[in-house]
């Protein structure tokens, strides 16, 4: 962990930092550049965390607005993206809890993870293959949805978004060892779930 934090301090290069400084001076359009840069990855993180397209849109808006409000508090100890994904993960988890509460109150008709691959185009593949691929992706997403939050977040950040352990440690503020053990358990659970869903791998 001490190694991790040392790396944080020395990892001063942040291509977002100058733009962040402009934002802090009141340049709202500079914030637009940050949105442009990060929205796709933020959106996909939110999509895999929540498993719902519309919910992911809400998460992205909420997370960026929260970042805008708090940008004066961002001091550049970590990279802006690390700070931003921390917000995204937290907003995602908050909204998942709220959604769970809503579902408990009203009788759920369909699983929110049912149709996660909306809008995923598979060009150049036959319709059947596309359909199959879509089906597989939906099942993968459904399996992600079965994971406990603490396993889900590491799986999404590591295996889907490809963050380094160091970055994930910064985003989640969890030691690297913990991240790894959670990740291995998450993969194990995913393997079991997918085997159940797909019949065979």
């Amino acid at each position, binding site marked *: 962990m001490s190694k991790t934090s040392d790396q944080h301090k020395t990892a001063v290069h942040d291509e977002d930092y100058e733009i962040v400084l402009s934002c802090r001076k009141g340049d709202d359009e500079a914030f637009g550049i940050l949105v442009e840069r990060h929205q*796709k990855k933020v*959106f*996909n993180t939110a999509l895999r965390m929540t498993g719902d397209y519309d919910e992911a849109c809400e998460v992205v808006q909420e997370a960026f607005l929260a970042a805008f*409000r708090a940008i004066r508090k961002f001091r550049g100890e970590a990279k802006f993206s690390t700070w931003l994904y921390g917000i995204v993960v937290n907003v995602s988890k908050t909204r998942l809890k709220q959604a769970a509460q809503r579902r408990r109150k009203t009788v759920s008709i369909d699983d929110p993870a049912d149709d996660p691959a909306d809008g995923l185009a598979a060009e150049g593949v036959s319709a059947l293959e596309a359909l199959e691929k879509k089906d597989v992706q939906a099942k993968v997403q459904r399996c992600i949805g079965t994971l406990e939050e603490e396993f889900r977040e590491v799986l999404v950040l590591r295996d889907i978004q490809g963050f380094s352990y160091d970055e994930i440690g910064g985003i989640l503020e969890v030691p690297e060892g913990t991240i*790894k053990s959670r990740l291995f358990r998450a993969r194990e659970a995913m393997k079991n779930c997918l085997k159940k869903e797909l019949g065979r791998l």
Partner: protein
Amino acid sequence: MDCRRIEEKLPAYLEGALPPEEGKLVEGHVAACPNCRRVLEDLVKAEKLIRGLEEADPPPWLKQKIMAGVREERARREGFLRKLFYPLHIKIPATALATVLIAVFAVYVFRSVEPETRYLHQVPSEPASAVREKVSEPTAVIAPKAAVPEAPPDGDRVAVSAAGREADRKRLPTEEKEARPRPEQQAVAEKTVAEKPDAAPSESAAVRMHKTPLAGSALPPAGKGRALSGAAAKDEMRTPAVAARVKAGGPGYVFSLYARDPAMAVNDVESLLAGYGARKITKEFRDGMGLVTAEIDAGKKEDILRKLKSLGEVREKDKAAEYHAGPVSLKIEVLAGP
């Protein structure tokens, strides 16, 4: 080591995160155990499936919506600041400051318009009196109210005229600079009134004109002097308006000459004035009293006065102002003196 414990270690093994000894142990087991090998393969395939999840594109409106939220947030923050400061900290001082500025501006306008409005009441010609009526009618109600705070220049003048009208003399040089042909001045005056029918300046102009009948006789005809003075004005001065003013006993000097024989003195005065190039000389003698009026050059006044003194005792009746150049009227009463 049984298969269950090996399976638990497989994800770490795949990641290369096991200590070397444990790694070798797992490797040996997997090579020998087809069941565990299949689990390992499933794990690899599962990871591939997870990594194979396609990236979705956010909707195109998402950024716009975020930025709209950002602007809203900014507006709300500023709105909050406004709420914080506006009613108590800024609004009242701003209102007070605006009021003061308006007052200062009004006084400034009043003062700058004053020289133009001053002579309005002194113009006996038709258009001027028309203007006077027009203005005084609607402002009659306002006049008394406005007269109280706005009157100082007027009051000044009344006071000064009572005290020998020193101030008027001092004011003269600037007034001379503004000397203009009469018709033009009149036009300017009308313009001033027409342009600002409701503004404070016209109110004060009305006030001024209202006061005129009261203070008129006591007021020194400064405006007239200005109108009559100035080298550029010489020829234009002989317009009917000026003639009318001279006839009305307007601006200029009024002397009383006490002579032993007024009837003789009247003729003497006439020839004296004629000798100094006086124009429009009129002469009257009735009931032992004579009156000679004329238009003279202001510069010759002292000379004329000196000569008059040789005819008898001279008293200057109206010492309102000194005129240094241009034509002024002169009125000499000739009375039976000691």
